[in-house]
């Protein structure tokens, strides 16, 4: 058998190793394990993300200036010991070996230690970079010395997170740029390590949750990386959204359930939302063993939508029975499509969240909305009572806990967006009033408004008079959709770019 032959030859070779060789092998292995691991400085800039080795010289940490600057621009070095000159773009810096004072563009610059030549490479103390780099680069540079991380310019990936209710809960991280962390686990903990992303610290590094299954998360930095460690009482899996900007940690056992609620941003041109179709693109990384997420490529980042229009109800949830043959869920879809048309014709990219008779839970709708990072979320309802249009903004429930740093309580995620949500409702109301359509702006305990992070309103359309069938009239739908779109356009500059 082939298998046993291979095994046999391995055994033979082992036996034939001479004892002295084994001894040196062991010594070598011990020496290797005892040697300090090579340390690196991670550098984040808009031009490139890279790392340079840190060396211990003269009892302090040093980095090579050429390696540090080369990925950022045009660099020329002239070594004429003890003088050493480096040209970065049009800036000249002059160093003298053994001296802690340099000259940059003819002016003195103090280093925290001596300039050294290491195998012909000009090296400077790491802690000098905070003062040296702004003058060389002509812009800010922020050094996290203890963790070996250097931020060039105003770069930084921030994150928020939302703890969803329910037992067991889910923890959803949203990042301002795509991330691709290493996922590692140990009993009771899951580590997300960000080596290639300029992930920055939340306001409070230690976050505790009111959840039975996910108790806390801690942000830390070290060894050229940022790390989020989540403590849980049950095994968790990490799901990555296709755009790389959202990570959902959910219980491993309810993986299927988590996937169905897992948000995925649909590709442009396809209105999403048969939920089944939306499930496919998510990647699941479970443990054990620890798994590496697939690299997020630029090509997979979908287009951002300025507006998400959510046709409320659907599937089994028919909404109000408006008449014997007319259900609310059908009216909301018709209105949603019309509103999309009106918004798109005004240059506002729009996604309709339910463009079919799919059944979507309120949580799922909020997940979709939060993951797509729109500037505005508009939920549509239809009603038989009253006349005209009611515009609702969130009425938050009694807060059962405070936000923890960047973590938003699921039921009060809307809180910081409320002023702008109300301004949006007022803007839409004024457009409706111009058309003599009766309109009211109210707060409402209406989900998923509470769970949406961005500006969120709900529009409840009632018939123009007592005849409920007017809700299906194209003219009436067009009139209202046009006014709502105008209201959004008028406040567009305040809503700004998608968060």
């Amino acid at each position: 058998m082939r298998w046993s032959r291979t095994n046999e030859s391995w055994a033979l070779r082992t036996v034939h190793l001479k004892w002295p060789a084994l001894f040196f092998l062991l010594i070598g292995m011990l020496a290797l394990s005892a040697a300090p691991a090579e340390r690196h400085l991670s550098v984040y800039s808009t031009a490139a993300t890279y790392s340079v080795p840190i060396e211990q010289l003269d009892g302090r940490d040093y980095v090579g200036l050429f390696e540090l600057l080369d990925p950022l621009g045009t660099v020329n070095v002239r070594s004429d010991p003890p003088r050493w000159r480096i040209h970065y773009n049009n800036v000249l810096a002059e160093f003298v070996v053994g001296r802690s004072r340099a000259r940059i563009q003819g002016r003195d610059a103090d280093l925290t230690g001596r300039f050294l030549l290491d195998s012909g490479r000009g090296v400077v103390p790491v802690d000098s970079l905070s003062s040296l780099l702004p003058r060389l680069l002509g812009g800010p540079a922020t050094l996290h010395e203890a963790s070996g991380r250097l931020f060039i310019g105003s770069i930084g990936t921030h994150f928020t997170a939302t703890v969803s209710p329910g037992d067991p809960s889910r923890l959803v991280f949203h990042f301002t740029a795509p991330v691709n962390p290493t996922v590692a686990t140990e009993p009771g903990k899951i580590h997300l390590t960000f080596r290639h992303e300029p992930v920055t610290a939340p306001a409070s590094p230690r976050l505790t949750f009111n959840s039975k299954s996910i108790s806390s998360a801690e942000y830390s930095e070290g060894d050229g990386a940022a790390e989020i460690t989540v403590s849980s009482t049950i095994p968790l899996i990490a799901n990555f959204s296709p755009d790389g900007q959202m990570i959902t940690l959910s219980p491993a056992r309810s993986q299927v359930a988590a996937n169905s609620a897992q948000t995925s941003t649909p590709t442009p041109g396809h209105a999403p939302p048969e939920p089944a179709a939306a499930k496919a693109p998510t990647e699941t990384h479970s443990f054990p063993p620890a798994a590496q997420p697939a690299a997020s490529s630029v090509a997979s980042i979908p287009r951002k939508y300025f507006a998400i229009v959510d046709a409320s109800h659907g599937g089994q949830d028919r909404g109000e029975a408006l008449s014997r043959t007319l259900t609310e869920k059908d009216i909301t879809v018709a209105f949603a499509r019309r509103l999309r048309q009106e918004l798109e014709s005004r240059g506002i990219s729009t996604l309709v969240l339910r463009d079919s008779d799919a059944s979507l839970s309120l949580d799922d709708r909020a997940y979709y909305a939060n993951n797509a990072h729109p500037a505005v979320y508009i939920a549509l309802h239809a009603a038989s009572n009253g006349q005209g249009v009611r515009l609702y903004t969130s009425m938050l429930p009694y807060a059962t806990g405070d936000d923890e740093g960047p973590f938003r309580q699921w039921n009060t995620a809307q809180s910081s967006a409320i002023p702008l949500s109300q301004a949006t409702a007022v803007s839409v109301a004024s457009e409706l009033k111009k058309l003599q359509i009766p309109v009211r702006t109210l707060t409402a305990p209406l989900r998923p408004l509470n769970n949406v992070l961005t500006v969120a309103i709900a529009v409840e359309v009632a018939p123009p008079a007592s005849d409920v069938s007017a809700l299906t009239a194209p003219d009436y739908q067009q009139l209202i959709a046009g006014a709502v779109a105008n209201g959004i356009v008028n406040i567009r500059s305040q809503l700004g770019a998608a968060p």
Partner: protein
Amino acid sequence: MIPRHFYIAASVMLAAVLGMSIYAWRMRGRVAATPASSSDSRPVVAPVSGPTEEVTLFVAYDDLGILRAQAARIPLPSVRQQRAEELLRALIALYLDKTSPHPIPVGSDIRSVYLIDPGLAVIDINAAFADGHRSGVLSEELTVASLLQTLSANIPGILKAKILVEGQPRETLAGHVDLSGFFDLTAVHQLTAELETQQ
């Protein structure tokens, strides 16, 4: 040899843990059992006799989609919890009347109201009330605001409220208004102010 004081300390801690566990378990049992056992403690006949008191009811009007404060004289028992129940039943009776400004399903009732300090009111409505309730954001909102504002205006000290259906938590009243969380009475007062004007 393990020192004696260590044994004593360990026993004291063990006793404390045991005590806390029993206490926590009993508290948990109480919270779980309270709404469910409500039907047993409910009087068979509502105590509608006796001296009347003037109260303020916040009444929903569907035609205008508004809430109006109305003075009413109803007989009220002296016990705070029963007062709360009778107050809401008076409101329900108004909505069940054939001249109702805000019709609700036949058979709608308040099963119980629990006033739990500090400042929590739990209103348990029956299934008929929720199951047959008209669907719609405004319709449902009028009902909820009417109940909560009426309770809060006449029973001082309520900060938050929860609505249960047949002793169980429910997602929404009739597809819209969220019943899953606790209502913040400050927000309810704000909503009432909004609903009192037609704009």
